[in-house]
C-alpha cells in the first residue's frame, strides 16, 4: 500500500515537471514528504520529468519555450527539496561555461547552463566576453571536468582554438565542448575540441559521449 502511494507521488512529480505544472508539483512533493520518500528518489523523478520534456524537443510538437517552462518547474522542485534537506546546492560534475571575449550574446549559453545545472553538473558560469586567461584559471581552480565554450559570431569564434590549446596544456583531462551559431562538427574537430553540441536538444548526449571518448582515450 505504501509503495503504491510512493509510486503515485513520484509519478505526479514526474508528470508535473513534464507538463510544467507548478501546482501539481507542490502536491506531489507534499505527498512525497508525507510518505517519507527519500530525497534522492524525489530528485530522480524531477529529472525524469525534465528528461521526458527535453526528449519532446526532438519532435515538432514541443517548441523550446515549453521545455524552458519544465526547466523552471524543476528548479522550483529542487529548491523545495534543498530547503527540506537543509542543504545548499548538491555537488556534481564540475563544469565551467562561458562566452568568448568580444561576444556579448548570453541567451544560448544561459539555456545550456541551466540544462547542465538541472542535470547534475556543478556549473560555474563565467558569463559573456570572457578573456582566455579567465577560462584557464577557472578550469584549474574549479578542477573542471568539462569546459563549455560558446560563440555566436565567426569573428569571436576564432579565439576558440587558442583557448582549447591552452586549456589542454594546463588541464589535459578537461573535456572541452563547443557550441554556437557559426560552428559545426567539422569546425569543432579542427579546433581541437572534444565535442560539439548543435543545440539544447543534444547537449547532454554529446557531452556524455565526449566524456566517454576522452576517458577511453578514443579519437573523435
Amino acid at each position: 500500500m505504501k509503495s503504491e502511494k510512493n509510486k503515485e507521488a513520484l509519478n505526479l512529480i514526474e508528470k508535473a515537471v513534464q507538463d510544467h505544472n507548478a501546482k501539481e508539483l507542490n502536491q506531489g512533493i507534499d505527498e512525497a514528504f508525507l510518505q517519507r520518500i527519500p530525497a534522492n528518489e524525489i530528485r530522480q523523478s524531477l529529472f525524469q520529468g525534465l528528461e521526458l520534456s527535453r526528449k519532446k524537443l526532438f519532435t515538432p510538437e514541443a517548441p523550446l519555450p515549453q521545455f524552458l517552462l519544465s526547466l523552471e518547474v524543476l528548479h522550483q522542485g529542487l529548491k523545495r527539496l534543498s530547503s527540506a534537506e537543509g542543504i545548499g546546492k548538491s555537488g556534481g560534475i564540475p563544469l565551467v561555461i562561458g562566452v568568448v571575449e568580444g561576444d556579448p550574446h548570453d541567451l544560448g549559453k544561459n539555456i545550456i547552463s541551466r540544462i547542465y545545472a538541472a542535470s547534475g553538473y556543478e556549473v560555474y558560469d563565467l558569463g559573456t566576453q570572457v578573456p582566455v586567461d579567465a577560462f584557464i584559471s577557472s578550469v584549474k581552480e574549479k578542477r573542471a571536468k568539462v569546459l563549455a565554450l560558446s560563440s555566436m559570431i565567426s569573428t569571436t569564434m576564432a579565439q576558440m582554438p587558442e583557448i582549447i590549446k591552452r586549456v589542454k596544456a594546463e588541464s589535459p583531462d578537461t573535456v572541452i565542448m563547443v557550441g554556437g551559431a557559426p560552428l559545426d562538427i567539422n569546425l569543432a574537430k579542427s579546433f581541437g575540441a572534444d565535442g560539439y553540441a548543435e543545440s539544447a536538444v543534444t547537449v547532454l548526449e554529446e557531452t556524455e559521449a565526449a566524456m566517454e571518448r576522452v576517458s577511453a582515450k578514443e579519437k573523435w
Partner: protein
Amino acid sequence: MIVKPQLGAELISELHKNALSTLGYQNRIAPGKDIEKILSESIDWVAQSSNARGMYLAEKVAGINKKEIITETGVIRSPRFARLAGLCKGKRSVVFMIATIGDEWKRGLGTDASVLRQLLFDTAASEAVELVAGLVERQWRAEVESKGLKASLRFSPGYCDWDLKQQSVIFNALDARNIGVELTKYYLMIPEKTVSAVAVIAQDVPAPAPCAFCRKDCVWRKMSYQSKR
C-alpha cells in the same frame, strides 16, 4: 538620410505573429497562457521602449569584377553579390543601410530573469529590429521606385560568401554614430539589435538575391529552386 520609424499598432500584431513563428509555434501548436503572458509583456515592452532609428545612403558603383563591387567608399568582396550586380542593367548604385532599436528593451528583463523570459524578450527584440529594418528599406525603396529604378533584396555581411569583417564597408559609407550604433573590433554591432545591409539599384535587376546562383539548401535561402529556373 536618417529616419525614425515608428512601431505602430498595426506592426505590433505582426511582431506577435513573427515572434510566435520564430519560437516554433506553427498553426497546430498553441503556446499556452504562461508563455502568451510573458510574450505579450515582452512585445509591449519592446515596442514601447524601442528607440528605432535608421539611416541609408546610395553610392554609385565605380566598378564590378568577378569577385567584388567597387563603390566610392569601399569594396564589397562577395563574388556572388558581384555576380548579381553584374547581371543588372543600366547604371548601378549600391544602397547602404543600418537600422537599430537601441538597448532599452533589455531593461524590461529585470534582474534574475528566467531563461524563458530572456528567450521571449530576445525574440521580441530580434523581430522588432527586423520590422524596423523593413520600414527603413520601405523608405529607400520608395525613392528608388519613384525614379523608375529597381533594387535587389537586402544582403548583409555574414550572408552567403560575404565575410562578416566586411561590416566595415557599410560603416565606412555611413556614420552610424549618428544613430547610436558602433562597430566593435570583432565586427559586432552595438546595440546588439541592429541590422546592416546593402542592395543593388539599377534599371533592371534580373536576380533579386544571390540565391539565384546557389543550390545550397540553407535556412537563409530567400528564393526557392523553382523560382530561379
